[in-house]
């Protein structure tokens, strides 16, 4: 069945809500309007207002009330309308949700899912373009996922909903309707914490996730055709916990690593991936670890400025060529 990324997320919600009546959806305009991006479209009609709940615009409260419901045994899927707004809920995520289980010696768990449409390239400017995943990937108690394909979007959301710990699910809004793929009918899961090799290669590895996966795959095809390079592409899929085994395996296999993400370079998760490789696979490296990320600035509105600061296929191709020639 051919589906878009947004449809895959929508299907996961339908299937999980049918499977378990403790699953419910809550957020700004998720019910009557079906969500700002129509991710929750149709849920209200099937599941009614008790399970598909429009809330006031109050992110801290949306997450906090979700935490309260989760520790009572429900499985709330709350939506931040844009991932940029997640900063309003920061305290409830890092202090409340993430520590709940630990703080009380394991008495209760907090099976909460926070969906957050992230990412640039849609001319959203400063507060509708960000990739805030790295604010959370250093918080124990949380899990953070960022699917890049329709298959992973569906499978990871279903896993997140069934997970007993709080999961932040970053979905890339540029991908919603720009990618389409065949996925199997019915129920399937993608495990949290497991990366996937999206393309096998011998000469060099690109480690990436989210919106940049598609640039990386395009770049790999280009350098194969034009330079005869065989590039492996590893999609992290989960950012916390990182799949260290898969990261080290590809680094050891090719000895040359490019890390690409749409998040800013400084403090982005690429730094952590590079550190893991430098610490545990140093002897296997045939060149420096190269990072491609967004420039260390804000997300500008002007389309030429935006294009200038964001990573893209060309920038990844250039990084691959530079490293290959090392």
């Amino acid at each position, binding site marked *: 069945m051919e589906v878009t990324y947004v449809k895959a997320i929508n299907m996961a919600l339908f299937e999980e809500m049918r499977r378990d009546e403790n699953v419910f959806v809550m957020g700004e305009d998720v019910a009557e309007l079906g969500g700002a991006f129509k991710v929750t479209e149709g849920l209200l009609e099937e599941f009614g207002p008790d399970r598909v709940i429009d809330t006031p615009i109050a992110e801290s*409260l949306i997450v906090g*009330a979700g935490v309260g*419901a989760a*520790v009572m*045994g429900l499985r709330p899927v709350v939506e931040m309308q844009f991932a940029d707004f997640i900063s309003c809920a920061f305290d409830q995520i890092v202090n409340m949700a993430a520590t709940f289980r630990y*703080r009380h010696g394991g008495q*209760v768990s907090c099976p909460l899912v926070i969906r957050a449409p992230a990412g640039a390239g849609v001319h959203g400017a400063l507060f509708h373009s960000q990739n805030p995943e790295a604010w959370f990937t250093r918080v*124990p*108690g949380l899990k953070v996922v960022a699917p890049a394909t329709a298959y992973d979007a569906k499978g990871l959301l279903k896993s997140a909903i069934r997970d007993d710990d709080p999961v932040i699910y970053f979905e890339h809004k540029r991908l919603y309707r720009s990618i389409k793929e065949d996925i199997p009918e019915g129920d399937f899961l993608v495990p949290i914490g497991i990366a996937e090799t999206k393309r096998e290669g011998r000469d060099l590895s690109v480690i990436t996730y989210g919106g940049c996966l598609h640039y990386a795959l395009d770049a790999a095809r280009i350098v194969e055709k034009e330079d005869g390079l065989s590039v492996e592409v590893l999609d992290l899929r989960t950012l916390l916990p990182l799949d260290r085994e898969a990261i080290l395996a590809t680094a050891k296999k090719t000895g040359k690593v490019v890390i690409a993400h749409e998040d800013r370079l400084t403090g982005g998760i690429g730094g952590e991936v590079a550190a893991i490789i430098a610490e545990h696979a140093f002897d296997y490296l045939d060149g420096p670890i190269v990072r491609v990320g967004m420039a260390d600035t804000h997300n500008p509105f002007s389309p030429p400025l935006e294009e200038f600061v964001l990573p893209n296929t060309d920038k990844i191709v250039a990084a691959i060529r530079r490293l290959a020639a090392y």
Partner: protein
Amino acid sequence: MALEREKHLAERSLLTLTETELQDMYRMMVLIRRFEDKVAEMYMRGKITGFCHLYAGEEAVAVGAIRALYDKDYVVSTYREHGHCLAKGASPKRVMAELFGKATGVSRGRGGSMHLFDAELRFMGGYAIVGGGLPLAAGLGLSIQYKEEPEIVCCFFGDGAIPQGAFHETLNLASLWKLPVVFICENNFYGMGTLTQRAICQQELYRFAQPYNIPGVRVDGMDVLEVYAATVEAAAHAREGHGPYLIEAVTYRFRGHSMSDPAEYRSKREERIWQERDPIKRFRRRLIERRISAATLDQIDREVDAEIEEAVRFADESPDPDVSEVTKYVYVDA
């Protein structure tokens, strides 16, 4: 301060509560006071470390309010929560052990003074972020509504939480959705060292109920029966599906904000005036007027002292958590 109606309801409670119930309330207030006095002593002796906020002086609020709930109702508290946790039925031994950071503590030594929790007793936690527990209380209420259960949530917070956005976000939602939550603001006049006059635009805090279209009352938080009577009404209101209720309990902490605060921002005269309104002494006088003998109450005092000594012994002799388990409980499968 409190309205005549609240005083009247309190008088009526004195007649409707049984002698055993009244004695139990007295016992719990004494237990909390002696517990906190002992915590201060253990702190000075270095047995308890970290940040520790005592509830002495405010006992009437926790005991009056929690006595008005059913056992299965939920309580959400603050970082000054030893009293609420004990009043909800937690074992003084396990609370003291938590303050000592021991493996036998209610939170297995992971939380300490500000993060007591007992899922079985439905004591849903102390929160060391001012106002942090309020959105959570809304979520508990939402869950009760979702599952169509008969319980309610009683959410304590201090005057310091009122300027927080979480307070306003939560009251708006709780009122809008008619969530079964009784909000109890313990107004002790100081947000740490800052007088409410310097922090809040409205000194009659119960009036914050009005913009959210819910009932709000102010009670004398040094009178356990007044708190009890108001909470009985509020709990019935919430349980019957009419939505949340705000109670402002005017009270006073007899010690500083925390063990490291000598409270020099308060005058000795002010402290003396409030000491004269000591909720335990007042309640004791009323019980004696109601012909409960001083000897009976003295006997309760002695029993409580023994219980506190036992709690200290238990905490002191308990093992520290094992460092090999330091990451246990971070994740469900950890």
